[in-house]
């Protein structure tokens, strides 16, 4: 055969594989409201940037008539490309081929691209859309999953790993996204669970639909397994493209700088956001936008544990991770879920050289038997651990209340914050005025003729003496008390001069955080 003929033969072979599961299967996929794996890659990656690997890989299974079955690409598409110019390794499971089920060669294609991402030190993106393990391949499917999980762990904190759930992701398969940094879900399309509705029905007799058990909303609002919620696949891809602009390629780099922009001070003026009455709430995200470049804030896990707010913004062109108590929800208390949410994000920023900006306004931890029995002790300790462990620049601004354990936990000087600023409205005290007065002046109040009058006097006295930043400032625990409208100036200066910060962690394999 001449070169021309051989080239035509190649194109013919490629065409056969590019069909995926065939026209009928593709139509079924589209009817379910889902894009095909190939279309997803084209939609997400920069135009014409995708280079496919392992197009001609075939399975080698023989049991259960598998040797008679030909599965194009063995049900997964892997390769490299760019997103907004950033290089990435990507894999997308093809639901049209044997339900996207994972066999040994399917898994090997994935682990090969994972190894490539680890060696090339570039982000890894995985689009999950699979019925699960290929039962016909038995233990080989389990081996495949195991090899993937191992690499997820080896890559964790080295390269960014992103999982996109665009179909079922059930049983063992769902552990891979759980091991990655960010999980993207789409309403009505993503389904994640360990045991599905059929198994639950037969073992426990409980009836529940797939959507109610492990749909996108469940994981965005209740379980906290998902980090970003979208209403369509295209919206999801836009979110991924945006996220990529904030994070570095790998853990030895910093995120690419953006052009410096000032916050939109006309729209977001701090002195107009904060109410005069300290008991009245406000949306802390507005304060973040009053500080960040171009008032841009990319929130993470928006629908989960809303009493703490986490996300990325920029300060003078550099990515910063924001952690803030949200007075609008549960008065901004810390509890089991919010501690988990904040602690993991702090560790992510620490792993990828992203400085942390913490905004503090909380009355303490959420009281309650269910919180105590759910282990708020060990979950709350996660925040203390993560902040203390972090060696990235840490800038804290105490906005209003910072009582007791909450004051310590939200990146206080004592946990290694590099800069601690406080507003004049800050109240840094061991507890709120009402509670404190009741304890400290108990005998006076009890023995008084008019206890209520004495109590209100004592509360006022406590407020005057301790509900302010000056006592903490007198001890040197605060660097400066600043005017709220100047916060951007101080935070930007802090971030600018700490770009070369280098702190040594103790010599150890790793610590024992309260998992």
């Amino acid at each position, binding site marked *: 055969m001449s070169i021309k003929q051989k080239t035509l033969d190649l194109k013919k072979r490629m065409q056969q594989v590019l069909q995926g599961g065939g026209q009928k299967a593709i139509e079924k996929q589209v009817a379910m409201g889902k894009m095909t794996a190939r279309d997803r890659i084209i939609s997400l990656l920069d135009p014409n940037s995708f280079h496919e690997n392992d197009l001609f890989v075939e399975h080698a299974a023989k049991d259960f008539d598998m040797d008679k079955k030909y599965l194009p690409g063995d049900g997964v598409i892997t390769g490299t490309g760019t997103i907004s110019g950033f290089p990435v390794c990507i894999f997308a499971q093809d639901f049209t081929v044997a339900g996207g089920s994972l066999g040994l060669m399917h898994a090997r294609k994935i682990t090969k691209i994972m190894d490539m991402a680890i060696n090339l030190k570039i982000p890894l993106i995985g689009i999950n859309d699979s019925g699960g393990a290929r039962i016909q391949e038995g233990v080989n499917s389990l081996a495949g999953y195991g090899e993937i999980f191992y690499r997820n762990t080896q890559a964790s904190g080295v390269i960014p790993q992103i999982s996109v759930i665009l179909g079922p992701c059930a049983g063992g398969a769902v552990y891979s996204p759980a091991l990655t940094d960010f999980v993207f879900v789409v309403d009505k399309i993503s389904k994640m669970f360990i045991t599905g509705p059929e198994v639950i029905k037969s*073992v*426990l*007799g*409980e009836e529940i639909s797939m959507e109610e058990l492990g749909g996108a909303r469940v994981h965005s609002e*209740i379980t906290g397994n998902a980090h970003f*919620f979208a209403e369509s696949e295209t919206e999801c891809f836009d*979110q991924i493209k*945006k996220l990529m602009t904030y994070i570095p390629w790998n853990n030895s780099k910093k995120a690419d700088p953006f052009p410096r922009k000032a916050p939109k001070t006309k729209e977001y003026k701090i002195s107009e956001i904060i109410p005069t009455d300290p*008991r*009245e*709430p406000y*949306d802390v*995200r507005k304060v973040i936008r009053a500080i960040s470049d171009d008032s841009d804030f*990319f*929130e993470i896990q*928006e*629908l989960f544990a*809303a*009493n703490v707010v986490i996300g990325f913004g920029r300060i003078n062109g550099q990515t910063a991770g924001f952690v803030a108590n*949200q*007075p*609008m*929800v*549960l*008065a*901004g*208390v810390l509890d089991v879920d919010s501690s988990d949410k904040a602690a993991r994000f702090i560790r992510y920023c620490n792993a990828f050289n992203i400085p942390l900006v913490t905004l503090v306004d909380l*009355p*303490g931890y*959420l*009281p*309650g*038997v*269910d919180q105590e029995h759910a282990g708020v002790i060990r979950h709350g300790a996660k925040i203390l651990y993560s902040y203390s462990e972090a060696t990235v620049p840490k800038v804290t601004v105490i906005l209003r209340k910072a*009582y007791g354990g909450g004051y310590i936990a939200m990146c206080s000087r004592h946990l290694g914050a590099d800069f601690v600023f406080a507003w004049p409205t800050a109240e840094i005290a061991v*507890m*709120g*005025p*009402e*509670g404190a007065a*009741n304890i400290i002046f108990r005998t006076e109040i009890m023995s008084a003729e008019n206890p209520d009058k004495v109590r209100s006097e004592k509360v006022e006295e406590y407020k005057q003496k301790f509900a302010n930043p000056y006592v903490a400032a007198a001890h040197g625990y605060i660097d400066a008390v600043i005017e709220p409208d100047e916060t951007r100036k101080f935070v930007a200066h802090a971030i600018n001069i700490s770009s070369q910060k280098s702190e040594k962690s103790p010599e150890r394999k790793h610590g024992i955080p309260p998992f």
Partner: protein
Amino acid sequence: MENKKENTGQLPLVDFKVGEDLYKTTIPRKQQNRKAYQPANPKIITSFMPGTIQEVFVAEGDKVDPTTRLCILEAMKMKNIIFSSISGVVKKVNAKQGQLVPKGFVLVELA
């Protein structure tokens, strides 16, 4: 991304007590739906999972202690033996052999 899901304004502002102090804030559904704490009653022995009663060993009037086998609940492919945590006298036995029970079904009541 700014407008669509910033929905903390949809829940009403209520007074919320933290410690002794009162704050105006919103309470998310998860917190609103939480069940108030009820201490467990050791005299009521319930099924910890849905399953089938394989065999019942006690009857009304029997004296039992923490080592007495009350019944066998077949669940998750295991024959689970149900015990009481305290000693007492059986007041009522609701479990019947072959019966399919849901989670939290009262199997045995002590006096």
